């Protein structure tokens, strides 16, 4: 059977149309190149819309003591010093410019009294740092980027007569494979979700900006799109993933009713003064302040409450500890029998703020609880518990260029790239991560294309990619993809969740290997016309690789740090802090090896108080004082 293939030629292919992808596309277009943007959904629906709290940038609008060095320190602390220092440095330095730039494209952030961009408090950030629009900051960011793309298309239309001459958005299209020739990127292959028709993109550079992996897990704040496509495409193309054991369980997801389990409750609720209590009415977070944070967080209610009015003379409330700490605390409370009947704890903002202020500062939270759970958060407490929210692990990249290590022409930015956030991401750092590294990826990909030129796609590569798309319909007697997806989610939820042990992780690895054989034999009913079962069969393959990489990395890392907690190794290890777990794929299975973490250079090392570093580093590292 000959399959008709639609063909396109571009300079750069951006896979993913969230914040990072759109920012990369804008940059590449402004460098004079022709760009195709691929989105799995409609344009403007990417998961970035779900980001609520804000975008962290040390503009110093609310507290002028803030600057990039303070932000850098907070990011490294939040990541428990496993971050790639250079990414954290670039991010801290460039975030303010990326936010101000959005304003020039029409974004309307909330304001301070002086008319500057307002900034709010958030977990792990020393000063009020998050630019925000109520609690719908992600929507503002994606709409601004979307409208920037439209503005550029209007300019192109005026010049060339064709709005899509330099940037074209391919909505509802799935990429199933990255194509390479002679070790370099040559294009990508995929299909239109609407009709299943196959599409070949010839492009010498690809920016992966596909976001996260949450759908690999049962309880998640992620939409159906978070299936780790970019992670998996990169692995299969010969790139590496770094530290895939680190997953952020956001401490506050909804827990009731069951149909909304996992939906995010923004950290701004705590930033605005929300308090966590157990069923005994105890404000339990005071019990869970780890030693490394004791000097920064209040150990009594009186001081914590005073902080909301006087931040210079009081320590922060422990509700604002980094997310990993709060998630573990909630998990422990529930395990100890002090959780609600639905397995959560209480989060209450009604006692500190008036109904009017709550509706103004947290409008979509009010809306979400009122309409989906029948709870009026201006009068009563919310029930919350941890939900799989974000993957810190991702494609191993060169920090300055976002180039994927080992595959010329491949770039990755945003959640699908690894390194920036170390073992735990601070809230608010994601939106600016998208902008800083989206821009850098677009810029570097453009420079690469200008010097490297084009690469031909071979007929054999196209045929192989096409056969793979046809396969689910040609097989018979296999299983239903929905059922296998549920099974995978059960495995990850039960065996690779918030608290992990060697026995369970070993068990997970065996079960994932068994599942791989069954997934290889999926059968899909119906035809290619907008067929969700067919779509899921490809997503599932990606999620399986993610689960395997996560479980295998997690079993090796014998310590607890950030988004990786081992019941059998409950402490941080100074040895493991110096190690990245690197996943690669040999065509049959994921293999994980160890690689030394780049050492902080002296000028960044010196930004920290040596006493603080003692908590993380070995005496030898401290004596060395960073690299030269």
């Amino acid at each position: 059977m000959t399959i008709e293939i639609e063909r396109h030629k571009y300079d750069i292919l951006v896979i993913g149309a969230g914040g990072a992808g759109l920012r990369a596309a804008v940059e590449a277009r402004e460098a004079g190149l022709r760009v195709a943007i691929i989105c799995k959904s409609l344009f403007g629906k990417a998961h970035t819309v779900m980001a609520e709290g804000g975008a962290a940038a040390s503009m110093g609008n609310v507290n002028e003591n803030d600057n990039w060095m303070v932000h850098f320190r907070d990011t490294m602390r939040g990541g428990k010093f496993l971050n790639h220092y250079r990414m954290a440095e670039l991010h801290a330095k460039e975030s303010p410019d990326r936010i101000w730039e959005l304003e020039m494209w029409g974004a309307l952030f909330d304001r301070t009294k002086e008319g500057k961009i307002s900034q709010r408090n958030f977990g792990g950030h020393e000063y009020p740092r998050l630019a925000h629009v109520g609690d719908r900051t992600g929507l503002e960011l994606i709409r601004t980027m979307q409208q920037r793309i439209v503005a550029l298309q209007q300019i192109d239309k005026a010049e060339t007569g064709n709005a899509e001459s330099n940037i074209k958005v391919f909505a509802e299209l799935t990429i199933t494979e990255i194509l390479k020739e002679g070790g370099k990127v040559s294009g990508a292959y995929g299909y239109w979700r609407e009709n299943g028709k196959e599409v070949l993109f010839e492009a010498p550079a690809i920016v992966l900006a596909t976001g996260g992996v949450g759908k690999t897990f049962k309880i998640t704040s992620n939409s159906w799109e978070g299936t780790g496509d970019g992670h998996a495409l990169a692995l299969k193309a010969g790139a590496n993933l770094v530290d895939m054991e680190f997953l952020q369980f956001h401490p506050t997801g909804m827990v009731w009713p069951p149909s909304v389990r996992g939906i995010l409750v923004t950290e701004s609720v705590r930033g605005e003064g929300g308090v966590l209590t157990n069923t005994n009415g105890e404000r339990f977070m005071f019990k869970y302040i780890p030693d490394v944070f004791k000097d920064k967080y209040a150990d009594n209610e009186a001081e914590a409450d005073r902080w909301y009015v006087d931040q210079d003379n009081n320590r922060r409330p422990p509700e604002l500890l980094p997310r990993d700490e709060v998630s573990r605390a909630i998990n422990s409370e529930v395990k100890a029998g002090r959780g609600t009947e639905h397995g959560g704890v209480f989060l209450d903002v009604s006692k500190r703020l008036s109904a009017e202020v709550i509706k103004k500062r947290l409008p979509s939270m009010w809306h979400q609880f009122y309409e989906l759970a029948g709870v009026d958060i201006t009068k009563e407490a919310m029930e919350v518990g941890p939900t799989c929210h974000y993957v810190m692990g991702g494609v191993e990249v060169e920090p300055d260029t976002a180039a994927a290590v080992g595959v010329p022409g491949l770039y990755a930015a945003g959640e699908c790239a690894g390194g920036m956030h170390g073992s735990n991401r601070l809230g608010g750092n994601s939106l600016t991560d998208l902008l800083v590294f989206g821009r850098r990826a677009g810029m570097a990909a453009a420079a690469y294309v200008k010097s490297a030129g084009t690469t031909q796609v071979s007929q054999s590569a196209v045929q192989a990619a096409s056969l793979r798309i046809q396969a689910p319909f040609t097989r018979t007697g296999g299983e239903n993809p929905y059922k296998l997806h549920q099974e995978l989610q059960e495995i990850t939820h039960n065996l690779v969740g918030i608290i992990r042990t060697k026995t369970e992780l070993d068990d997970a690895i065996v079960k994932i290997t068994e599942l791989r054989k069954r997934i290889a034999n999926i059968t899909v009913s119906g035809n290619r016309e907008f067929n969700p079962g067919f779509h899921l069969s490809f997503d599932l393959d990606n999620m399986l690789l993610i689960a395997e990489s996560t479980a295998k990395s997690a079993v090796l890392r014998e310590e607890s740090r950030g988004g990786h907690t081992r019941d059998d190794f409950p402490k941080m290890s100074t040895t493991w802090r110096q190690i990245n777990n690197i996943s690669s794929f040999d065509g049959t299975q994921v293999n994980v090896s160890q690689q030394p973490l780049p050492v902080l250079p002296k000028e960044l090392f010196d930004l920290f108080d040596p006493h603080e570093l003692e908590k993380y580093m070995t005496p030898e590292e401290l004596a060395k004082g960073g690299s030269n």
Partner: protein
Amino acid sequence: MARKLNLRIWRGNKESGALQNVIVEANEGEVVLDVIHRVQAEQLNDLAVRWNCKAGKCGSCSMEINGKPRLACMTQVSSFPEGEEITITPLRAFPVIKDLVTDVSFNYKKAMEIPSFQPPVGMKPGEPRMAQVDVERSQEFRKCIECFLCQDTCHVIRDHEENKSSFAGPRFFIRIAELDMHPLDILRNRKKKAQEEHGLGMCNITKCCTEVCPEHIRITDNAIIPMKERVVDEKYDPLRWLGSKIRKREGIL
């Protein structure tokens, strides 16, 4: 408590289609999108439906439930009386692709026709100073999640394909209003263009769009009516007409 639901789901494509009866379980607290997913996983594996966030924030799962344009993720099953049939159909104003999925490209074409934001020449990043009260007017419209329910319900285009070429629809009237009220935007004549090029005059303010907006944006009262009034004022009031010629931007009067 689980209950049995009788659904009638429209299935088909651009050629033909019909309502199909399906019986499915629904649990406490579930929304219509949950039961559609259950039907998809257990009975009709290839049932086409768009969705993303399942939290009312992305505007993907727009459809008509008992004839009303709704987000399936925000429609509680418990809002329907026990035993009542629930009829689920695709958006009527847009061509069907398959089952509950429609071709909404009309909206993206219209978005392309609205002149973009234009900041003052020479303004540098970081310079803008705006009062909260001034940004709030446009922020209301920027809450829009582009679910296109307002476009679907608007009777100017709902059953009048012939009006589509000259009518941008409520979603884009609030886009124009947002830019018109944007403290930094300097492009002139947005309202006049809304009237002359985007079909603002065809709206006869029945407020159907406001009623279906899941973000509760006051589309008619805060965007459409003020723009209509200003357009009329400027057209018939010689002083205002003169004012609009001498002021730096219109809309300051």
